[in-house]
């Protein structure tokens, strides 16, 4: 068995309830650097809550999330205050949402530069870096375009560039291709995978779409707040991944 480095994210015994509904019910999940993890499940299964807790957007009612970035001390996300979690998300994590959530009044370049500016990077440097990322994602020459002047696929590529600009170790994506047609979706997903796992970074993605999930290296299925299947079950990195109620193990298209 191969020796693996410390996991990038290690979630243990996560629980989260909204009133009487248990969105997370004792979830354990370990994510290693370089993985592309697709989280699937029916609506209300807890997959988005899981992603939000892993990324520090939400705090769990109980449990822990240890984040160990390369060259940095491990950080227990659940013990950080709101300010520190916001900083962590801004500087160490990247996000891509279904509808991009770009600021319509900003140009593509300004949207991408925004996380760097928020972290205090001087504007010329931030915009230059943003321009590089736009070019990498095939949007060279579109720096000054605004949201209304971009197609859905282009806007989502801008969102991907924004997620990458601070060079995060892990990118969280919530239905990143959910609002796109199948052709554009495949192209945007390719760009997302290239720019994350293609560079040795990690991608954690919530999706409803099996075809999208099939392009990831690992598939985690969530139901009723529990992980019911994990294609990495049994592997060292997945310790505990099936501790909830593992009922089946998937081998995805990508790992066959």
């Amino acid at each position, binding site marked *: 068995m191969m020796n693996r480095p410390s996991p990038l994210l290690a979630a243990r015994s996560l629980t989260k309830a909204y009133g009487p509904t248990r969105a997370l019910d004792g979830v354990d999940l370990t994510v290693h650097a*370089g993985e592309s993890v697709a989280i699937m499940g029916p609506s209300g299964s807890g997959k988005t809550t899981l992603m939000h807790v892993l990324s520090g957007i939400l705090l769990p009612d109980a449990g822990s999330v240890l984040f160990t970035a390369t060259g940095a001390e491990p950080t227990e996300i659940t013990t950080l205050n709101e300010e520190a979690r*916001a900083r962590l998300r801004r500087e160490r994590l990247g996000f891509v949402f279904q509808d991009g959530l770009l600021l319509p009044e900003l140009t593509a370049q300004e949207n991408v530069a925004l996380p760097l500016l928020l972290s205090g990077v001087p504007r010329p440097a931030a915009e230059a870096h943003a321009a590089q990322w736009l070019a990498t994602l095939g949007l060279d020459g579109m720096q000054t375009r605004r949201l209304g002047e971009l197609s859905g696929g282009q806007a989502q590529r801008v969102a991907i560039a924004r997620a990458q600009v601070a060079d995060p170790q892990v990118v969280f994506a919530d239905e990143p291709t959910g609002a796109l047609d199948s052709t554009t979706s495949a192209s945007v997903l390719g760009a997302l995978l290239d720019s994350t796992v293609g560079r040795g970074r990690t991608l954690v993605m919530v999706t409803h779409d099996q075809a999208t999930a*099939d392009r990831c290296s690992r598939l985690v299925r969530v139901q009723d707040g529990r992980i019911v299947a994990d294609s990495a079950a049994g592997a060292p990195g997945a310790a505990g991944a099936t501790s909830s109620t593992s009922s089946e193990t998937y081998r995805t298209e990508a790992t066959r």
Partner: protein
Amino acid sequence: MTTSPHTHSGPRVGFTPLGGQDKPGTTPAGHLAAVPGRPLSAAGRGASRGTGAVLKLFLGKLFSDRQVWGLPVTAFAIVGTLALLVAGGAASFWTIKGDLAGFYLMLSVFALMLLVFPMAGLAGSAAKLLARRRDERLSSLRLLGAGTGTVRTLAVVESVVLAAAGLLLGVLGYLVFMPLVGLIPFVGRPIGLEGMWLGTGWLVAVVGALLVMAAASSMAGLRRIEITPLGVRTRQEASKVHWVRVVLAVAGLALAQVVLNAFGAANMMVLLIIMLVGFSLPMIALHFIGPWLVGVVTRQTWRRADTAEKLVAARNVLESPQQAWRQIGGLAVTVYIGVVGGAGMGLANSVSADGMRTEDLLLVADLRTGVLLTMLIAFVLTACSVGITQAAQVLDRADMYRGLGRLGMTEASMEAIRRRSVMGPLWIVLVFTLVAAVATTLPVIGAAVIFSPLSMGLVAAVLVLGVVLVRLGVTASRPTLRGVLAEG
């Protein structure tokens, strides 16, 4: 090793096109078509009946969701209260007897003219808030097949109903605050309850005018947004403010000068008309120049912006300099008159107090009170308008704010952006106005600073208080932002 490199050529998702036309009886539309004598078209009388039914359904549930009615009704309650108090105060001048009755009448009309733009700005903000709060329902209706006419009718009727509810509360607010405002002294005595009471006829007229304004703003607002089955879209393109505005404004100013010169000496009524025309034109001219000026200065701010907050705030303003101006531009003329008038009155009081009749002394004191009060009311109206507009914008862009929070933007940064978006244009207006006041009446202001520093100090205090009020207007919408962020 459990992970493996991702593949970029995963299986494609196949789909079966639904193409082809509906066959009678096989789809919902087909079922409708299959009903004998039941046309699919909703035009004509059928559409009217449909509109009536939709109105009945939605109006019946209008007050069941506080998210829908809470802010608009509150906004119109504020509009109603302030409009009635201002009208009541102004009307009290119309009952003054004596030699100076005509002069007081003229002053009250002048004060009302100065407050027209801030009041229109406030009413407009409240009306826009009405139009935006029903986005989801409007687009859902379009999705279900409701025509544009039905959706627009519903939007306008709902606006008028909510505005009416708010204005009713506004009448209550007027009655509650009447005794307090009535304590302000004019002609040597407090205005009093009797002075502040408009009378039923005028009260109904003011409320009616505000209702018409709500309906008109709602219709105008709907023209600027496109209600589609997929949602309500606002214009994405940044508004351009053309230099032609400046040319038109200069022409307006020249015309005003001609009007004033042509009718130099006349009786009070003619003087009143001259004043209305003569001062309306420069005010309208200023409202042509204002957005252009805000756009030009903010473009410089955007170029120099070195933080995310400054950049986004500048872009916010540049998105629509007209909108930024509408929110705070009403202050320009009021502040100009306030500074120049305050200086003039202070000077008159300090220089000639000894030889003046009691009546004249009272007039000078009243002029000073009136000038400062008008300036303060304009700031209060603007602060309320800012609060309402900001709350509406936060609700409008709730998903965006939540998304920015997830990306790691702090609430403090969001607040800084909102604050700069309002205070930036405000400072532009204030600096422009103060420079204009000093440039045009330097001897008066200079002399007032030397001979009547207390008067100028009072003007400065009102200005500072006004800026603080507008700043509080932004802060008042912070709980709305917090609520939005807490949801998600």
